[in-house]
């Protein structure tokens, strides 16, 4: 039937072919239909609305999983301890779906270092060590200026008895200016969701940072003792200001370094008990 049409109307077939070639050409040409189509104000508006809807859908999805941030605020203020069952689930009708929330945020916004950081915290307390390390490392790859990421990685490696990596990360943590960490905490909306429930956020955040710096020094000194670098350990331990339980631990590490004896199991256990992965 098609062939009969070709024989009867060769002119129309030829014209049709030419139009088809022109259409294809105009479609692929940069000055052709496609470009003109996207320059059309109505089409441009629809394209804009479409990309906005994509962004909005992500934010809406995340907002359906808002956890009860007051629990994380309590952890920051030292009023509550991180517990695995309160990282991802419902407890007495309250949503403690932190892991799900940060996982979704990290999926939708893979370049967000804060989501990766907070996901690392959840995974650590859910006893997914490797995942926690991976998320902290991803966070560092995006933002290498945040004290707490280095600190937490240092703590995790210490607990895993990888003293070399622990010392490396703790050293980096101590080399980052604390003002940068405080500025990041105050600017990110994900951190703000947590600290805005606190009574006096600047004081608590700064206080936590100071404590963590002392912890980092102690752990680093312990790492040096473990590695047999007693002189370095002594230098580090001297710089620990030391008050409260820090004072006691500092004294013990110093004694170990002075007597050039390896770190005992009891002292290591004490360090692991006192110095833990923290939110911020």
């Amino acid at each position, binding site marked *: 039937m098609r062939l009969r049409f070709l024989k009867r109307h060769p002119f129309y077939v030829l014209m049709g072919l030419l139009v088809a070639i022109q259409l294809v050409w105009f479609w692929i040409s940069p000055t052709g239909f496609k470009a003109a189509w996207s320059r059309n104000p109505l089409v441009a508006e*629809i394209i804009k*609305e*479409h990309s*906005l*809807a*994509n962004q*909005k*859908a992500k934010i*809406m*999805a995340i907002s*359906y*999983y808002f956890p009860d941030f007051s629990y994380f605020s309590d952890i920051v203020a030292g009023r509550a301890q991180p517990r695995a069952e309160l990282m991802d689930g419902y407890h007495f*009708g309250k949503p403690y779906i932190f892991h799900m929330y940060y996982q979704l945020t990290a999926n939708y916004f893979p370049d967000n270092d804060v989501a990766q950081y907070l996901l690392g915290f959840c995974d650590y307390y859910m006893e997914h060590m490797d995942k926690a390390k991976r998320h902290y490392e991803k966070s560092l790859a995006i933002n290498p200026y945040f004290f707490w990421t280095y600190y937490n990685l240092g703590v995790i490696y210490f607990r895993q008895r990888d003293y070399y990596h622990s010392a490396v990360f703790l050293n980096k943590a101590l080399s980052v200016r604390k003002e940068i960490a405080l500025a990041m905490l105050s600017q990110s909306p994900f951190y703000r969701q947590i600290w805005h429930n606190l009574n006096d956020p600047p004081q608590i955040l700064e206080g936590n940072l100071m404590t963590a710096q002392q912890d980092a020094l102690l752990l680093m000194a312990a790492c040096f003792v473990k590695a047999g670098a007693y002189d370095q350990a002594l230098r580090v331990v001297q710089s620990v200001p030391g008050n409260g339980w820090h004072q006691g631990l500092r004294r013990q590490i110093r004694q170990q370094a002075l007597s050039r004896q390896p770190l005992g199991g009891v002292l290591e256990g004490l360090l692991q008990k006192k110095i833990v992965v923290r939110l911020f």
Partner: protein
Amino acid sequence: MARWAKAVLVLCVLWWVYLFFVTQIVVVFDSTGYESAGRLIAQHGFAEFLREGPQREPMFACLIALSMHLGHWWGISYYYPLKMIGILFLFLTMVFSYQLMKLLSIRPWLAALTLLYMGLSPVMTNSSMRLWSEFAAYPWVVLAVLWTIKSWKALEDAAPEGREDFKMVRHGALVALAFLLIMSVKAVAEGVILCYLWPFYGRIFSYWRQKNFIKARQAALFVLTALMIFEGAVVAYKWANYHYNRQFTFTTRGDYAFYGNTARRMQPLTAKSLGAAVTFVAGGNLCPSLFGQEACDFWSARHSDDIIGQKQKELAQKKLTADEASRYYIKNSIQIILSNPLQALLLMVVEAHKMFFWESAIAFVAYPDWLEKIFYNPSFIALTKNVMAFLSWSAMLFGLIYLCRPRRQEEDRGQREALLWVVNFLFWYMGMYSLFFILDRYSFPLISLYLVLVAFMVQKTLKAFVK
């Protein structure tokens, strides 16, 4: 199709195309389950879907899998093919609804107006463009009613001869097919079909009494074919589930959802809790403002879920198998109902009214700002929801009264028969759902039937006023 209806369809298609481009699906809660079920089928095939089951009803997961394949093929997100399928289903629903309105002798302008509302309704468009299963049942519900009307007409008009038997078998097969399509989205169809065909059971009996055995045989053939094909396919699917995951069931949820709702509903009733139950039906702030949050929470899904959670823990400690647990739930639910059948019936009737509050139950779609301001505006939601609930409720009542009063001489018999099947379907579908906790989205497959019924009521009322 009348010119008006065609114009409305074109207008609606343009609106849907706009929505297709400017909206986006929000994947949360149950959607994530549907998504992973669809991915399972797309990546590992249907057998794996059964092996990891029992799962939810299969059609929507298959549609997602199809969308994933299409999306992969076209190099785009699977959301877009899925939205296209949603639009296609909406279009089919409108075409079938128009056919139904023709059988009800609804005037073309009124039919076009009804179609326009159907095509622009926030809930219809919202539900067709999100990752929840309801829209997949829309066309099949109307199709099931349409084919039953045609079967009924065929039975009434059939000559009392043996050669008409095959025609009735064919009609039975078509009705079974329509119900199977509904069943593959909403498992409640298994209960609905058994009750819905009652006029045919009555016909078998009445023809038998009139000694019109050939017609009785034709009616019986229709019923037997419909039920055998339907149940055969359902049982085959259950066997497939048994083969792959050792559970002889169509889907999960039914048994324990029935138990949770019954146990919650049958707790001692006071005047205050009954008042809270009645006002909770309408949703919004009505119940908390009158009876307080605690009294209203009792009637919420959370309470049923808590009961289910506790019972599941208890049965897990007893180490019951899934089949044993299922039998336990059903047996206990029936015992609880029989302990106070009046209260059970009363609350079934009260809570079934939730099925009328379908409009503006929208969520899980990101809209452009201007549409969001309209669709998510509390006043707009309250207005459309209550107006459409009132209209649907009145239309249902009108339909029931219209059918119960004796037929006048001048009345069109076909119109009355069509109305019978529309009301009959609505009644049994709502009745079956009243055994469970009703979420607003459960009523979505009925929207087209509600709107058709509203059009019928408006036409009859206008006619009465014009006279």
